[in-house]
């Protein structure tokens, strides 16, 4: 889908997505590139959308958490989060889902070290990492080709 908006140069990609296009899956938490709650895919690469200016994302392909999966069907990563209860309040969850999807795109069979780096840029306050660990294992099996 093509999105158009006229914005001040200082508007971040995160704020543009949330306030202009009602794409609020990516969250604003730390707002300075630490917590990962705003993670989206920019031309296939996971980025902190709070630290990307909207003008720098012009004509790029942006995939947000809303864009994963098909209509009425969860992406295998999303399904793995649901099945393994890898969320509580859920505010950090979209960022983790996108980070895990990006990780599996790069490393379909990730090593513990790759997982550590792939998910190390996100924080959760409720403490959902136990469920996430199980979700990671499931998603690594079910994501192939998705």
């Amino acid at each position, binding site marked *: 889908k093509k999105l158009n908006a006229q914005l001040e140069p200082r508007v971040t990609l995160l704020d543009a997505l949330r306030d202009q296009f009602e794409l609020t899956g990516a969250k*604003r938490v730390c707002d300075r590139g*630490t917590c990962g709650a705003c993670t989206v895919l920019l031309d296939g690469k996971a980025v902190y959308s709070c630290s990307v200016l909207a003008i720098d994302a012009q004509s790029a392909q942006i995939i947000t958490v809303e864009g994963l999966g098909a209509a009425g069907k969860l992406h295998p990563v999303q399904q793995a*989060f649901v099945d393994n209860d890898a969320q509580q*309040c859920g505010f950090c969850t979209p960022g983790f889902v996108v980070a895990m999807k990006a990780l599996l795109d790069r490393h379909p069979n990730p090593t513990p070290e790759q997982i550590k780096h792939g998910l190390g840029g996100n924080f959760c306050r409720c403490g*959902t990492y*136990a469920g996430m660990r199980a979700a990671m294992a499931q998603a690594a099996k079910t994501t192939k080709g998705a």
Partner: protein
Amino acid sequence: MADETNKYSWPAAGERSWIGKRISRVDGPAKVTGAAKYTYDTHRPGMLYGRVVRCPHAHAKIVSIDTSAAEKMPGVVAVHVVQGPGSEIHWAGDDLVVVAAVDENAAGDAARAVKIEYEVLPHFVDDFHQPQNVAEDTSPLSRNDLVTLLINQMPAPQIIERIQKRGVSFKADQGMIDQLKQNNVPESVISALQAAPVKEAPAQASSHYRKEAELTTGDPDAAFKESEVVSEGEYGCPVITHCCMESHGSIAEWPAEDQLFVHLSTQNVSGVSGEYAQALKIKAADVHVHQDHIGGGFGSKFGADRWGIYTAQVSKKAGKPVRVMLERAPELEVAGARPSAFAKVKVGAKKDGTLLAWQSESWGTGGPGGGGAPPMPYVVRIPNQRRQHTAALTNIGPARAWRAPNHPQGCLITMSALDDMAAKLNMDPVDLLLKNIALTAPPEDKTGRANTYHDELLIGSDLMGWKKKWHPRGQGGSGPVKSGLGVAIHTWGGRGHQSTCSVAIRPDGSVEMKMGTQDLGTGTRTAILMIAADTLGLTIEQINLKIGDNQYPPSGGSGGSTTIGGVSSSTRRAAVDARDQLLAKVADALKAKPEELEAVKGTIRVKSAPTRSMSWKDACARLGTQPIEVTDKNLVPNEPLISSGVGGAVMADVSVDVETGIVKMNKMVCVQDCGLVINLKTAESQVYGAMIMGIATTLYEEKVMDPTTGTMLNPNMDFYRLAGYSDIGELVVHMMTGKGYDERGPIGLGEPPTVGPMAAIANAVANAIGMRVPFMPITPDRVVAALSSNQGGSHAGI
């Protein structure tokens, strides 16, 4: 059907279709797709964005405020002064002026254009050093003092003694009495309060400290004399912040002159309207509060807060909806803090480990109000005690309830002191706890709590491999990486808040439920649906549950682990009554009495002859045009479906690199009792989460205050560190279920498992490196400092 007295009882183990199963949370798909809308995600038509000018000083008087330049800035619609000239500000980051503009950048530009002159006053942010030469506080108790005592769950006789000794500075009016009753405050405390002499509060004392009266139990002097071994130590933990992922905030709008509509990030959907009404001089009935999802609260989101009120005020001025969500820095500076606690402790025991005596001098801060003493000695009721607490009144910012208020602090100090005693006795600390297990049963306990702890310690030991892994303190290996084990036990009350539930069964077979409760991410929605589905013989998909709005039947705020007790009992009652009305409607058609029928697997059938049945849909069709509509309240405070008081045990296994001081979590085990588990999956998630939060508070978290400026040095998520995906080691959760637990009904889990991890990890570190790292967080520098001093970290040396 059984008689009237137990028709609501929880179904027996063999008769449960949903309760106790592992069910994925019903709002999971919405949360993983970004469809779940939080307050922060909500856009209202014509909504403006608010930015706030905050005080940069820890203590100051406002001399003047000039908003004229800000008001002329492009995009600005309204400016509202929150605290005007003459106001005294007691912490940095406090709200002074709010600007509403068409977008956030315009609001931010205008906020920067507000000119404020301050008279800077001296500040005090030191809660770490032990207060010296402080006289005991004998002034009358204020409302705040009383609330602090109650939140700290101080035993009633001690509260009464304090009320009688010091008097009170306020008259307890009927509203307050009603509120106390609603919160299960004992009659004896309420009558003491009504009888207490009302004295005038003295002018603000100049001291930064309030020293409470010494409390003595038994004969501590004689007991210390009798003790063959005495262990002494200092322990403590700093102020930490809640750091909710979704910051505090709201969207306010005025659909009519005196009608307020707020989207609020809150733990208290049904209970917060009164606060708005009072502050804005409108009727509570005209305050509509809505929230679909909340991005974390942990005890910090019960009120409308100053920012909630001024969001409504500036919205009125602007004539448009206004959203103010706190930025990250103020979220950490002003919107959440757990009080610190430090203590010098002396413990006396016999050589066989029998604990005889406890003495503690403790101190800590809950901000400008001082704050209360953590419960000590925690869980283990050593028979002879002397305790004294001094509260430091600081400009750190106000404290808020933080999961299990005061328990983690009391647990850390107590379990550390007992662990040091075990080391001195050359005893395994699990054996020391088992030796004194009888001391863990509270006097009012009827549930065999000591047995619970006993069983939990044995199960935990097994899951941890404790016997095989444990070694005496300091014998954690010959290389630079030492391993160690630690243990702690904890408790919490629970019970349930008042809760009302409405159930409608419609002739087309659909079921709708409404409750003014909220799901903090604990799985409340799912648990309510499971109980209703179990009762009605349906699937959870067949029931439409609406929560998160104060126009639904009210439930209490989600705090103190009271939610599951509250909503489970009201749901069960309403669902049983609705079901029984339906059974009565169809009894004739099935040629049976209503009490001979049951609702199972989508059918209504005769219990003794299950083939005589009709489908749920057919049964509902017999309602004609009249749906069944039931609204039921639970019987709190005397609700027999629920109870209070749980025990848990935590064991930690760590590795510590003595060259770098880095602590690595290897494994942690939590064995937890919470009565009847409704949903095993989300219950376990909550315990895992509590353990992970415990790892963060033990190893990383501290609200670091700058003594020079009185401001927080790390109000961001780079330097206020949470635990990450790879920081947690292996985690094992074991829920105590079955006989002895199930019949007590559901008891909340939000608090108990958050208590023990800090103490267990701190003890594991001591076991690994051979000495105590006395103060949290156990950062590498503190480990190295402890190792370079002779007898563990000295207070002055850290």
